[in-house]
């Protein structure tokens, strides 16, 4: 029993570490400026970054399966624009919300097939996809923003029990993904494929099918992120934030997903996304000169990672 407990603690280590870091950050910043802890500020930290946390869930699956996706930022951009165009061109709003999920899944199924069946390494397939999607997006939109979105389209501005919907999406999808990963045969096979692809084959798990499914799910989750991204404001930018994919990957790996595949949980990536958002906000509250903001962010990421390494070494 004791060993079971320590085992659970061992696998949850990174998550606990992140919670501790987040709480410590909140405590420190809150003691400097109590406004930081206002419910209002806390929700806005979550709301504005929920799409990153959501996308990081899918990214975690991809990384656990032993792959990587550097095209997710571009995909979110494309899907957001498609959603916006549907909405402004008179299609029903539910379609504008749903289409990105379906399209995201379709596009990434294709990517997954390239990786699984044509044996193109994921970094190459998705680097290529990054080029194709981001170039295609500019060609398609000509750089124009989408404005004049219909009323009721702003899904990310809805509230339930006074909590903004992005927070619900973030929590709900994290829990769903966690259940999927732990309690379904598919979820376990993702770990297996990432841990040892050859052994997975010998265990009768289809490597290819698993990878394709992972990418399809990742695409659909990317679609959700895109909808959150698109519906937060009244205009949709036709370019994606520069380096979004790196932010999402960072959230995943700092959340404890080993880049070598095979280990990691989705809670960690969500917590890491929250941590980054909180860091961004708290530096403003701490009056850290904006010039040094990114350096401080870097130090904090590094500190989290080093603390995790120390913990891993202690627990063996």
């Amino acid at each position, binding site marked *: 029993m004791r060993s079971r407990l320590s085992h659970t603690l061992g696998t949850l280590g990174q998550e606990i570490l992140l919670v501790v870091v987040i709480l410590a950050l909140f405590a420190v910043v809150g003691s400097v400026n109590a406004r930081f802890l206002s419910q209002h500020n806390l929700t806005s930290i979550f709301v504005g970054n929920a799409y990153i946390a959501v996308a990081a869930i899918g990214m975690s699956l991809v990384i656990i399966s032993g792959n990587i996706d550097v095209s997710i930022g571009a995909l979110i951009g494309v899907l957001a624009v498609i959603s916006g165009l549907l909405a402004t061109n008179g299609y029903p709003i539910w379609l504008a919300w749903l289409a990105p999920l379906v399209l995201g899944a379709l596009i990434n199924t294709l990517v997954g097939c390239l990786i699984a069946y044509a044996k193109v390494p994921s970094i190459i397939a998705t680097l290529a996809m990054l080029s194709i999607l981001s170039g295609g997006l500019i060609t398609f939109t000509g750089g124009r923003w989408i404005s004049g979105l219909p009323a009721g389209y702003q899904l990310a501005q809805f509230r339930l029990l006074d909590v903004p919907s992005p927070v619900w999406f973030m929590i709900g999808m994290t829990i769903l993904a966690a259940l999927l990963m732990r309690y379904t045969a598919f979820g376990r096979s993702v770990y297996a494929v990432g841990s040892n692809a050859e052994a997975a084959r010998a265990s009768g798990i289809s490597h290819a099918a698993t990878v394709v499914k992972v990418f399809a799910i990742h695409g659909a989750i990317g679609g959700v992120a895109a909808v959150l991204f698109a519906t937060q404001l009244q205009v949709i930018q036709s370019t994606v934030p*520069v380096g979004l994919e790196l932010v999402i990957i960072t959230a995943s790996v700092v959340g404890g997903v080993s880049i070598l595949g095979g280990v990691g949980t989705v809670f960690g990536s969500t917590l890491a996304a929250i941590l980054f958002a909180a860091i961004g906000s708290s530096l403003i509250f701490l009056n850290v000169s904006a010039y040094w903001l990114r350096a401080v962010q870097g130090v904090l990421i590094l500190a989290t990672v080093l603390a995790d390494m120390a913990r891993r070494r202690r627990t063996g």
Partner: protein
Amino acid sequence: MTAVTRVLVRHEAILAILFVVALFVLAAQSDRFLTTANLLNQARLMTEVGLIAIPMTFVIVTGGIDLSVGSILGLCAILVGVFWQNAGLPLPAAIVLSLLAGTLAGFANGVIITRFRVPPLIATLATLALYRGLAEGISQARSVRGYPAWFATLGQGELLGIPSQLWLFALVAIVGIFILRFTTFGRTTYAIGNNEAAAEFSGLAVERTKLLIYTASGFVSALAAIVFVSRVSTTRSDMGTGIELEVITAVVLGGTSIFGGRGMVVGTLIGLCLMQILQNGLSLSGVRGDGTTVVIGAVLIVAVLISNVLSRFSND
């Protein structure tokens, strides 16, 4: 299988063929493409990416990655300016100090990766933020201009009719080819990428090799920074943003396995040239930037697909 066919189905050979095909196709599209002046000019433009791609090939062959190269470039660019203008040092001294700083930054990456056993992706994601942040903090977002005219010879001048930085690039490339192919160091690099534990058990200097590789990556990024500053005669803290993806694209297009253990500097060079002539040639044939991006993505996939298909016929 004869030796000749074995060489022919190598990814690098396929890429070279693809390169020649592209050269002819593009030359047919525009008569301004296949001219010495244009090609030399293109070589000048790709020097910074090319320089960094050489140590990056080593990094990726060990199964690692260095995402911080763009940030090191930015940091070193800023430091040249700061040392020269703010600290009042003579420019050559500023350059040397900046090269030292870049080396140190790379060394720090190496220490984090080898001593603290942080996976390279995570370590360099963190230092990506940190070094860029340092660049911003140190420069206080001010750019430094007005370099003496002699300094521009490195980035804008010529030597024997060939852009001066190309000589430097050629030197680094030859050193890279030589080390990776013929020396113990190169052997160790491959062994680390294929089976780090076995390399360790064989008494190879695993840690030292990795440390040196990341240090070299920092040094060469600093070198690229000097070339870059000299070429554009200004320093800004945002220099080199996103260059890591270009570099990685060149390296993986050149046939280096992202999982480590396989790859050649020559492949990287061909990959780099292919990317550059596509960008240039397509632009000259009237394709816009976004279209070019799409084509490069497609070429990346096609190159890998062809080499996958052909390698089925080889048993190597």
